[in-house]
């Protein structure tokens, strides 16, 4: 009876709607009012009756929508995540598929009023379903990442659990063996050939099914938005865990160099992990979730990686723009080399059109690091050129600038290949015989030498000036000879500079010993034996005085290189001893005077030799 009464009521309602409504849409509005008014007048019930009446195609559509509406409403209203239950999620997806196919099927007939009304309703239902599926998608992504140990405390136990539950890949071995599992992505630094799955395989499949529906229904952008927001968060957290800070260029510049060195080390690790592990892993995840939708995959991937990439590049850029102080060369070379070595990764992981900006930025910044290195060499040139000739180095010894520059260049040449690359780049055209670095190095050597020449003028004594240049020249040649620098500058250069050192050597002898040697010449033209004897006596006295003085002074001078010292002594002995021996021999044989010769001869030949061997020892005053 009650059932019958309701039937009647519905019939009346339909009648009223038909009578009052001047057109279909108005009638529909009236039915809508009824349905809002009382549960008994639900659209479903009202529609059922109608369908029964005319049985047309629209009625079939309407019936189908009614049934789908019921299901979708049930899902949309669910308190628990639909994807908590595989049966539920499968049913929900089927419902959406059906809705999509109905909408497609009836789409061409949308201009027919009743069909249009139905399609609007279908669209509304789709919006509701998409709204829900988007939430489910987000929640699944977040839960997935969580189950994979993105927990703030870096709890090792949780990490192990998640790997135990996933049998698919063999990476868990790598992680579990690590002593410290605090930073999961940073563990296998020695082996970058590794892709991690940030989400369990089952979750990825679920996400793919959802993404497929959202893209099919035209909600691709929303899907990609949710996806990238979640993954970006994961990625940026990973970067933070790698110890990478967000720094402005100014902050980088103001950072004390030692701190910055540590920061650079961290950056190098982070860049390697990001480009070799994290980004390729994200790429794979993206390709799996958006399988079959390459454009959506590319866009989402770019959105995910953009921020982290820019963060990495900004730091490298700040280093490139930063101070050109020469001691920074080695770290800047490290950054340059890291960027260079990662270029293939930048090319491959960012190969799609959306990422081309990132790719180009990476190249630009890499080149800029090259510029920075050239700038550092320029700064080194300036420092050498402007290094003032202040106090003379005591004893004509090694100047600190020589030591600094040579050791610096030797260290720099350990990165010879990189430097060759850097200087070739500057030319635009790569040269075959890598002459540009050679040119650069010879130029620096030239600057150093002319700076040393200016500095040598500080010495009043030309002999000391020569010792100074000899010392520094010798050091330069030695440092060049036994390293890559020698290969760069070439045999010719070394030969030329050895000759230069010999010149200084000769110059030293000439300036200090030649005069004495002159004293030992026996002048045969002197009148008579007595005259000769007198002259020789006089010369010997002069010689003794001069020799004493010279030895006293020159023994405080410095020759740092033992071999050079030995060479100097030998050549002095060769120069002096025969002449002296000859001189005193003649003197002793000069009859009467010769008999008293020993009164005038202060030194025997051996004594002279002994004194020569005392030269260039340096003294406490010289070392001051």
């Amino acid at each position, binding site marked *: 009876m009650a059932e019958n009464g309701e039937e009647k009521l519905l019939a009346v309602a339909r009648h009223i709607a038909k009578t009052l409504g001047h057109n279909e849409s108005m009638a529909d509005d009236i039915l809508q009012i009824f349905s809002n008014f009382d549960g008994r007048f639900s659209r479903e019930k009202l529609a059922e009756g109608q369908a029964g009446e005319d049985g047309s195609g629209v009625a079939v559509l309407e019936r189908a929508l009614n049934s789908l509406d019921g299901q979708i409403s049930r899902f949309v209203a669910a308190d628990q995540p639909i994807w908590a239950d595989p049966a539920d999620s499968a049913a929900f997806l089927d419902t959406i598929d059906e809705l999509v196919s109905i909408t497609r099927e009836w789409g061409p007939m949308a201009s027919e009023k009743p069909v249009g009304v139905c399609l609007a309703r279908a669209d509304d239902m789709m919006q509701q379903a998409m709204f829900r599926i988007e939430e*489910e998608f987000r929640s699944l992504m977040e839960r997935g990442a*969580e189950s994979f140990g993105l927990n*703030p405390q870096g709890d090792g136990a949780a990490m192990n659990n998640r790997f135990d539950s996933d049998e698919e890949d063999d990476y868990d071995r790598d992680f579990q063996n690590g002593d410290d599992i605090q930073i999961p992505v940073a563990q296998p630094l020695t082996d970058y050939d590794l892709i991690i799955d940030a989400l369990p395989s089952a979750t990825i499949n679920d996400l793919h099914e959802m993404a497929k529906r959202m893209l099919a229904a035209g909600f691709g952008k929303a899907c990609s938005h949710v996806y990238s927001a979640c993954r970006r968060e994961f990625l940026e957290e990973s970067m933070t865990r790698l110890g990478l800070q*967000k720094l*402005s260029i*100014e902050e980088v510049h103001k950072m004390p160099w030692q701190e910055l060195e540590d920061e650079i080390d961290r950056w190098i690790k982070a860049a390697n992990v990001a480009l070799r592990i994290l980004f390729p892993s994200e790429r794979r995840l993206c390709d799996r979730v958006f399988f079959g939708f390459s454009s959506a995959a590319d866009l989402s991937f770019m959105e995910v990686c953009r921020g982290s990439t820019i963060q990495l590049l*900004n730091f490298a850029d700040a280093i490139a723009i930063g101070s050109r102080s020469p001691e920074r060369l080695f770290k800047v070379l490290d950054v340059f080399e890291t960027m260079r070595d990662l270029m293939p990764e930048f090319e491959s992981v960012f190969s799609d059109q959306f990422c081309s900006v990132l790719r180009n930025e990476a190249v630009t910044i890499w080149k800029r690091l090259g510029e920075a290195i050239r700038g550092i060499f320029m700064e080194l040139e300036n420092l050498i050129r402007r290094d003032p000739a202040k106090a003379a180095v005591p004893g004509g010894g090694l100047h600190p600038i020589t030591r600094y520059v040579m050791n610096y260049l030797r260290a720099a040449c350990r990165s010879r290949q990189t430097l060759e690359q850097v200087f070739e780049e500057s030319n635009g055209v790569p040269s075959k015989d890598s002459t540009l670095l050679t040119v650069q190095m010879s130029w620096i050597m030239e600057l150093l030498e002319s700076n040393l020449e200016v500095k040598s003028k500080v010495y009043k004594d030309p002999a000391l000036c020569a010792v100074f240049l000899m010392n520094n020249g010798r050091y330069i040649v030695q440092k060049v000879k036994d390293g890559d620098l020698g290969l760069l500058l070439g045999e010719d250069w070394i030969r030329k500079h050895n000759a230069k050192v010999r010149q200084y050597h000769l110059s030293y002898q000439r300036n200090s010993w030649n005069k004495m040697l002159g004293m030992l010449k026996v002048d045969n033209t002197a009148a008579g034996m007595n005259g000769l004897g007198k002259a020789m006596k006089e010369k010997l006295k002069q010689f003794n005085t001069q020799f004493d003085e010279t030895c006293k002074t020159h023994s405080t001078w410095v020759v740092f290189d033992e071999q050079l010292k030995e060479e100097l002594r030998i050549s002095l002995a060769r120069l002096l001893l025969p002449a002296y021996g000859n001189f005193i021999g003649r003197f002793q044989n000069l009859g009467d005077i010769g008999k008293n010769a020993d009164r005038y001869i202060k030194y025997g030949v051996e004594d002279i030799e002994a004194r020569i061997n005392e030269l260039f020892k340096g003294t406490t005053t010289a070392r001051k």
Partner: protein
Amino acid sequence: MPATDFQGSFGRTLLSFRRDQVDSTAGSSHHERSNMEVELDSFQRQVAEKFIDLNASGGENELLSLEWIGKLLDSFLCCQEEFRAIVFNHRSQISKSPMDRLISDYFERSIKALDVCNAIRDGIEQIRQWQKLSDIVISALDSNRPIGEGQLRRAKKALIDLAIGMLDEKDPSSATNLAHRNRSFGRMKDNHSHHRSIGHFRSLSWSVSRSWSASKQLQALANNLATPRPNDVAATNGLAVPVYTMTKNSCGLLKEIDRIEKSSRVMNELIDSIHFPLTDEKETEVKQRVEELVDVHEALKNGLDPFERKIREVFHRIVRSRTESLDCL
């Protein structure tokens, strides 16, 4: 409008500024000096003219629009090129005192400008995120179909996200609460970590630390810029203006941002006021508001990419000019 006054008087000051300086410059030969004088005068005039032009094109509605700022950046790039040429032509004097000090001070400031460029790029990225949300609002409401509950729900959700996004830039603490409320779905079990991760996420989405503030930076950029050298003043301030307008408090000043904010707020209120069934009047109103949003959306869609490229260009040019001058030192 205060900004207008500022620019007008700034241009004039620049024109007169040079002349006071000339007499005190000493040292170089007479011939060289007069050459340089002509060169610098023309530079000052050009900078001043650019400002006057910009001032003229920036009518009430155009000022601070994406297009206007684009023009401003173009002008800056022109001035920057001129400045580069001047520095290059007189590089022999750069390493001498007091020019070396002034130049290094200028470079110090240019570093700040580079950071501001990067901040603008972050800002553009932020706007892109808002664009995506307004895109969802538009796609939900902008169709020939009648508006149903489902559409409204999606639009409303996107509008709330948008409001949170924009609010976050102003006051992180309130945003976190809102975000938490809004995104509580499916996260009941883990409120604590969720809360943390949102705050974290927000701060991570910037390539500089959150304590870094573009407006502070700009103040530092312009600080003590009273006298030293006209070139310096022009070259930094030329940048300071767009940069200032773009980034003050991170958002809100760019005309388009302001429009999105207003438009989405109105729409949000409108949607709150809607009860089903929808009256024709309401529906028309919604459609109208959507049209407004579409307008801004389109303007930004077409303008953001070239704008970002231009900002990058400015960045690279400042770096290049800096590198060149350093090479001269």
